């Protein structure tokens, strides 16, 4: 985990503990949620994709403020490339796991049935590379820190909710290729 992500998570925990200490996050005023995500992400690059279809899980807490904080993980299927001629066969696969923390502001509309949550995301992709050529194979994992804005638009049906999660992430390195993602959200809150 990158140093920035770690710092953000520590700040998050500190905020929550401080809120509880002030009574803001007492059980009666605190709502938790668990969401499944299913969607697709892509990066503006010609390189082999480590994104693509993805599925993930996010756990969140909404304080009275109403600030929403969450942590989550997602698996991106990535892509496979292959090439061959009469004497050589080449194969490579790239995929990734994304872990993140985020904080957002909950804005409810339509008598509480519609929730719009702009949020800021910090996270890290762990990109798994594999390549095979002839009898030789190499693999490795590369962490890549990212950050950026996102928005959840959720419709509530009792304790359940469904909607979309759209996000744009930036990679602060000179191979930075902005990432766009759109996910369906299915979850429950209490």
């Amino acid at each position, binding site marked *: 985990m990158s140093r920035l992500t770690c710092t953000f998570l520590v700040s998050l925990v500190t905020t929550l503990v401080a809120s509880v200490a002030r009574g803001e996050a007492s059980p009666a005023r605190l709502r938790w949620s668990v969401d499944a995500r299913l969607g697709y992400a892509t990066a503006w690059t*010609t390189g082999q994709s480590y994104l693509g279809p993805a599925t993930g899980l996010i756990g969140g807490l909404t304080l009275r403020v109403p600030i929403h904080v969450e942590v989550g993980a997602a698996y991106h299927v990535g892509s496979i490339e292959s090439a061959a001629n009469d004497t050589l066969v080449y194969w*490579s696969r790239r995929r990734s796991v994304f872990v993140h923390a985020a904080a957002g502001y909950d804005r409810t509309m339509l008598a509480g049935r519609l929730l719009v949550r702009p949020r800021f995301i910090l996270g890290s992709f762990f990109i798994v590379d594999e390549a095979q050529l002839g009898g030789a194979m190499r*693999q490795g994992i590369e962490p890549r820190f990212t950050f950026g804005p996102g928005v959840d638009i959720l419709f509530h049906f009792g304790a359940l909710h469904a909607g979309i999660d759209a996000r744009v992430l930036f990679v602060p390195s000179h191979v930075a290729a902005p990432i766009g993602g759109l996910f369906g959200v299915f979850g429950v809150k209490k």
Partner: protein
Amino acid sequence: MNGSASARALGALALAAGCLSTCTRPRELPPCDESPALPVAPKDPAAAVIVAAGDIAECPGGRQEETAALVEQIGPDAVFTLGDTTYPNGALDEFLDCYHPSWGKFRSITRAVVGNHEYHAPRAGPFFVYFCGGAGAPFEGRASFDIGAWHVVMLNSNCGGDLDVPSSVSDDFGGCGPDSPQARWLKEDLAAHPSRCTLAMWHHARFTSGEHGSADSMRDSWRILQDAGVDVVLAGHAHLYERFAPMNADGQIDVVRGVRGFVVGTGGKVPLHAVDEVHNGSEVRNIDTLGVLRLELRSEGYAWRFVPVSGGSFTDEGEAPCHD
């Protein structure tokens, strides 16, 4: 729709989405049978002609067609590419659709070292498969061969420091430290090939005045070369042409045992780089002319000439003996 049907539909949707992303048709590679083993047999063993350049192809925008025309005009015995063969990602499509139509016509006589941009693709796989063995063993990036009276060593210089190279890449070949597998291999190879004249090549220039700076990670390799009496090192990475006086590993001029370095990052990628501060030992620099380096490898020395693309006026030529 009941729950079970919904779950099945969702599963099918996920599978289809996954397949769209991952189930791609294999690309057809040009045949490898035209590519000989690493040794190069020059037309005149007493004066083998090679062409060298790095930082070559980008589509769109690169000027690799112009530099490829120079190679064709020179008609060398071998072509040495000095890394960053394609931009921006060293992807399979870039090699097949961008590099191959230009410099690809020399593939069978090309000996290629791996750059940092090649590692934007998984383990630089497309680079190693495209060159069919002309880049050494897959994923290692080091090899040696003879051409005429000269012995040539190719090294992998991706040893850290580049933001775009995954930190695990040096594990692929063991890194560049003094006791690394590559360093041990280099010592053994040079001891086993006591040619009077030896040339080494890799991507990250040990010394350059270019904005990327000098690669300290290649200091140990340079020291091994210097101790073995190697004559010439070719590199790229800095997008300019630069020639150095014979240098020792610590960056001081040593006309007796030093190694002469050429930086030839002028193979087609634009724009060229600015010079930050002129490095000690830098004898000639140019930052506004694309071109290739023509080297004539003679029995007891070498002659160099920078050949500019059409319209360019800069050139640099000279000759020097190999170490005694």
